[in-house]
């Protein structure tokens, strides 16, 4: 079936079975491979994208449920959250890197909702994102730094 999706500010046409999860639409049909498969069941967060600004697990969203929704993926995160990208690189957060797109998308959604999250808020917002390499302490620190930089540059106002 043909669907029109809004992804990273662009309208795209995709022909796929109605139960195809957004993750596979992005990866197989659109070549947007930044979002990763980690569990396919909503447990790990590797596939996290934004739907209308909130973090969602793209492996759990069938293409048929996306009508009229705006999807943002890691590939265009720098438009809204350059500070996060900058902090992530400066602090050398990534180890293998496989989980990091999902981590960044969850972190971005958190900063959209809370300009200066505490460690507890970070832990609560990021609990759906597994990092098997164990980069958690750097994730916390990079989110704090990005939050501070966003405020100082007025980006969150």
């Amino acid at each position, binding site marked *: 079936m043909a669907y029109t999706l809004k992804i990273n500010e662009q309208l795209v046409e995709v022909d796929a079975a109605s139960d195809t999860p957004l993750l596979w639409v992005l*990866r197989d049909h659109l070549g947007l*491979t930044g979002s990763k498969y980690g569990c396919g069941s909503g*447990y790990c967060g590797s596939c996290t994208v934004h739907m209308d600004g909130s973090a969602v697990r793209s492996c759990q969203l069938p293409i048929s449920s996306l009508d009229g929704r705006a999807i943002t993926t890691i590939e265009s995160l720098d438009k809204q959250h350059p500070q996060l*990208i900058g902090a992530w690189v400066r602090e*050398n*957060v990534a180890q293998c890197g496989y989980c990091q797109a999902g981590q960044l998308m969850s972190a971005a959604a958190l900063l959209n909702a809370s300009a200066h999250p505490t460690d507890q808020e970070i832990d609560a917002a990021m609990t759906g994102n597994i*990092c*098997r390499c164990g980069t958690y302490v750097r994730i916390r620190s990079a989110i704090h730094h990005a939050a501070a930089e966003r405020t100082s540059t007025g980006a969150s106002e």
Partner: protein
Amino acid sequence: MNAIANLSPDFSRRGFLGVSGVLVLGACLPSRGMLGQEHQASPFEPNLLLAISSDGTVRVTCHRSEMGQGIRTAIAQVVADELDADWARVEVAQAPGDVKYGDQNTDGSISILLNYERLRTAGASARLMLRQAAAKRWAVDVEDVRAVHHEVIDADGKRRLGYGELATDAALLPVPIGAPLKSEAEHRYIGKPVVHVDAEAITRGQSHFGADCSLPNMATAIIVRCPWLGGGVRAIRNKPSNAPGLVAIEILPPAPSAGPLFAPLGGVAVVAEDTWTAIKIARSLEIEWTNSPNHGFNSKALQESLREAVMKPGTPVPGSGKGDVDAVFAKGGNEVSAIYETPFLAHAPMEPPVAIADVSEKGAFVRAPLQDPQSARGLIASYLGMALEKVEVTLTLLGGAFGRKSKPDFALEAVELSKRLARPVRVQWLREDDIRHDYYHAPSVQHHRAIIDNQGMPQAWLQRTAFPSITTVFAAQAQAPAPFELEQGFSNLPYAVDHQRMESTGIRPGVRVGWLRSVCNVFHGFSANVFADEMAAAAGRDAIEHRLAMLPTGGKLNQPGMPAPAGHELDFARLREVIERVRKLSQWQRPRPEGVGLGFAVHQSFRSYVATVLEASMVNGRPHISNAYVVLDCGTYVNPDSCIAQMQGAVVFGLSLALHGSIDMEDGAVVQSNFHDYPVLRIAEAPATKVELVPAQGRLPAGVGEPGVPPVAPALVNALFAASGVRYRSLPVTA
């Protein structure tokens, strides 16, 4: 610094940046000829691992697999340092599997240890040749020219030539022997924190892992494998004859039921035009499997056998017997005795196994996240009966591995399917496949028994270990633990004791056993460190005081069984130093609030020394870890920030196995399937972590990726004892 070449080809970056947002094919095409196209003809290539082109670009080729440890960065740091290159003009390419690079087996935390001198020499030789080329051009003595930061400068500092300008001349010179190496003080990049070369691309979602590559006309396969090892397909009850997007349903022959166990597991491959179609059809299949001797395998029964084994004499470690243990036990005294247990574990790298292959009569092309592309190449060539030269194995980034991707079974699956279907095929493992068909970390039981004096000092110490040996995947008859397994924290127990015996027993498992980050050090480091804590507690002594008292004050361990290589013997002074440092770092003596305990553990593995203190308490009946303190002595290190990251990651990995990890088999089949029943640590459970590195002091480099793991679980158990008085002797801790 750019991480280009075949991990993140230029054309795909152009694709991503040129078109805003979407509708870009995230293809990463074969690397065939790519390097040749990217670089001008005949760059100055004084060494396999280093090339300088006439525009001044320095290309360092990384011949080890990158799985998050930062090896691509570290290798470039070493070469660029001795070359005195400008970091901004250094690129990192990734080597395919090829014997010409030397050892490429990225395991055992050994990449820097094996290659440090070679990489330095590569950089230093090129630097000398650039100086020679400049000296020749200026008709001066080579001693009168310096090479500094991508330029060669004459004695007055008046004439300067960039490395690029000299590359063509330098290429004509013979490679010198004995080029001078820098002193530690002269290092520009070695020993300095450097952001990983792939950090930017990873953070922007632009780097390529195994599943991110596609080839024209590629199909995707999901394979349904027999729940027990060695079973084959008897029948598919509901084989769909036709479904939109379905390419083929292929039956793959079963794996052998006993070693060598490097062949694919077999099963039913559902090949489709897209991943979701393959997943859906694979899940709908009803398959009848044939039997195998492993169908009756039960991990609980194995655990019971391991428990029984350590209650009986095992095979003594050759040369380990000291004094007369039995006589001291017969005499009696203050006896401490305990049994420790650890379960099967799955690696569960964030990226499940995945591989693409394109096989035709002309040759085989494979692209996959592999820890050893060179041995994979050999296996693929013999599997296909093809000349080695016709097989090309290239790498993507590895989305975590922890030992899992040292076996290329998933690449062989892709090879077989591509050959059958005569088109490129990607084999994608689902998380369920990964958890249920791993090469599992072996379960184990240890029995420690000692007579202690009133200071907690062991007068006699008997230790027994029992576990399924990893050698069972190599040979059908293998059973006994190998010396290299016992040398991981068992036969090299560092404590001074007059009467000592070490015994081991192996029991064959009904599944494949594999290396998992720090391997047997996980359980041997666990039991030895908890038992030491129990001896200290029995004597009412401070755990760190007691431990230092048990250790010789100097000298090297004369290790029975399998002696350490020269220069890498366990050094008691270094072991003591990490202990002293972690005592300070953790403020060990500072009283903690009621209900909060500190636990200590120390372990030498992969030639590095790690001491860890965890601060923990029980909160709502579950362990809560508030702080972790880690001191690492890995000798000379290249990138201190990577070392710190590895220790931080090791704390998380160690806590995952201490708190959550357990794989069970019933009737040969793994019970767990995904992160809901095989949980790993999440962010809220990750403690604040302080890491200290012991200064390099010109020592030999040693391992970093693995040695942080072994002390974590025992430090936790010891901390929980300090906090609550309850001693947990089995992992995972189920409070």
